[in-house]
């Protein structure tokens, strides 16, 4: 039941943009996005609830297409601090469990 993330890895230069995608085979109630730095715990970025609402967090935003059960995370004008592994998490409609994808390793270079 893990959601599928793509790409698996991406390398950016500072200032470039990136998109990370997440899709599920289940009808979703919510999609979560987290970032994990090496050796640390994942940290919450944002949550999108059923309704297709787009959210923003500084230069990081996300969308949720509930018809397609897909979400995308948009990172604009990337900074070195954006480096890390990004995970999407999904909660299916009517469920309590939170499943995570396999992650996308993002590396921002000067």
């Amino acid at each position, binding site marked *: 039941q*893990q959601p599928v993330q793509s790409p698996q890895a991406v390398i950016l230069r500072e200032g470039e943009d990136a998109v990370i995608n997440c899709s599920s085979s289940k009808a979703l109630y919510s999609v979560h996005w987290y970032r994990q730095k090496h050796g640390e715990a994942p940290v*919450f970025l944002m949550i999108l609830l059923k309704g297709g609402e787009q959210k923003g967090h500084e230069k990081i935003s996300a969308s949720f297409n509930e018809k397609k059960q897909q979400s995308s995370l948009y990172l604009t004008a990337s900074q070195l601090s954006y480096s890390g592994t990004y995970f999407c*998490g999904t909660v299916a409609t009517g469920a*309590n*469990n939170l*499943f995570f994808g396999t992650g996308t390793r993002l590396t921002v270079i000067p």
Partner: protein
Amino acid sequence: DAGITQSPRHKVTETGTPVTLRCHQTENHRYMYWYRQDPGHGLRLIHYSYGVKDTDKGEVSDGYSVSRSKTEDFLLTLESATSSQTSVYFCAIRVQGDTEAFFGQGTRLTVV
């Protein structure tokens, strides 16, 4: 920071021995989860709980059991540890269905 503590933080154990990992929260959150993190697999759900004595299996529950006798503690037990259970284990908590998860700092378990 959310009040969530995992113990131990590191453990080395021998194959065949039982191991218990503890997740303790001070937030009184209803939902608690155990994940394992392995290269190439991301975070995989082992077990979760939605209240005292209410637990359910995740996607990789074989070889693991859990217990939650108090709101604040969620225990993960490896009945007979195997080398394939060498991993980093994370506990997470959530208030309710439409809120974010907070993670503990993780437990690095090595089975030799």
